[in-house]
């Protein structure tokens, strides 16, 4: 990492960057503050990517631990949230990849929690009977939305979650995913087109 002169560093105005600089100085309270500020947000992202809250909590913990372990070499070169979600994205990608390798073993293990993936097509309304979203049972609707999300590729999935849950700008998503803003624009456009097409099969829009 290359140190940026303090007087010209735009990221120093980010309060979370200031907290992280305190963590670098050995302030444990600042670290606890950062964890509390981001824990729900990080867990939400992981839970939606992995479909498993317990695994999401473990990965969120690992994300914060990586942040803490990197404190000594920390230099503010991005918004704190961008850095945090970049780490989270890398962890999620690695976990999904290794999970993919174990997929056959995990199939048929049944539902283990409120976020577990239901068997495909179960609970979904018949294609011929399209209904307005408001008339669908909440669980049915959730199942349809989850399937639409699962139809996205890994990058589209995380980009949509950052866009929806974190309300991140394209520039920030680009920095998090290490892409150009124009690549993010087309990534999100394709993702949302795909979701729309998937949802249109079941929900009257």
């Amino acid at each position, binding site marked *: 990492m290359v140190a940026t002169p303090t007087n010209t560093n735009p990221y120093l105005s980010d309060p979370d960057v200031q907290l992280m600089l305190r963590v670098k100085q050995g302030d*444990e309270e600042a*670290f*606890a503050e950062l*964890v*509390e500020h981001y*824990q*729900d947000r990080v*867990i*939400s992202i992981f*839970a*939606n990517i992995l479909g498993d*809250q317990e695994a*999401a*909590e473990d990965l*969120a*913990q690992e994300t*914060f*631990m990586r942040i*803490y372990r990197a404190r*000594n070499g920390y230099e503010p070169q991005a918004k704190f949230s961008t850095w945090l979600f970049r780490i989270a994205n890398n962890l999620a990608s690695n976990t999904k990849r290794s999970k993919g390798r174990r997929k056959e073993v995990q199939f048929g293990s049944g539902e283990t929690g*409120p*976020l577990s993936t239901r068997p495909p097509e179960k609970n979904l309304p018949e294609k011929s009977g399209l209904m307005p*979203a408001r008339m669908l049972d*909440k669980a049915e*609707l*959730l199942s*349809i*939305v*989850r399937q*639409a*999300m699962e139809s996205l590729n890994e990058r589209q999935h995380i980009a*949509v979650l950052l*866009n*929806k*849950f974190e309300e991140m*700008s*394209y520039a920030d998503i680009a920095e998090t995913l290490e892409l150009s803003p124009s690549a993010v*624009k*087309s990534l*999100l*456009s394709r993702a*949302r*087109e795909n*979701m*729309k097409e998937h*949802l*249109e099969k079941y*929900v009257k*829009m």
Partner: protein
Amino acid sequence: MVDKLIRLTADQRSNFVAYLDGELNEEETRGIEQLLASNEVARHDMESLATAWELLDDLPRPNAPKDFAEKTIATLKMEEQQTPLQEQAWFQKATQIGGLVAGVAVVLFCGVAGFLVARSVPPSRADVMLQEYPLLEHFDSYREINSADFLTRLQKSEEWTKRQSKNPGGAKHE
């Protein structure tokens, strides 16, 4: 009427999502708004995209357990305690500095030791001969003279003084 139903280009469609996210510049925004005003297909597409986006509001956003931060910090502390000494940051730094100091000490020690050794080794025959060169140069003459007393007496003699005044600096070693 035809205009109202005309199919959208890929570029226009790609700008729809960016429009909904407020990521277009003024000119692009105006372009999309004009399109929406005149094209029914565009309006329907935009509405569908917006509805699909709203449906994501139903995705679960689970909260962390109350003791999440506490547990994370406790795990970190435990990890630090369990980290082998050689992997701990302070130890690595100390090892680096120690290595540097040891390196400098070794260089200094070698220098001093080398100097002392060089001084304590007896000079070789060649060194002695070089050192004594002024003497050796005229060794044969000195051997012929055979006595230093003789030279002292010669220097004090009248004959020597006369010869010196006639030929100053000459025949010094004869």
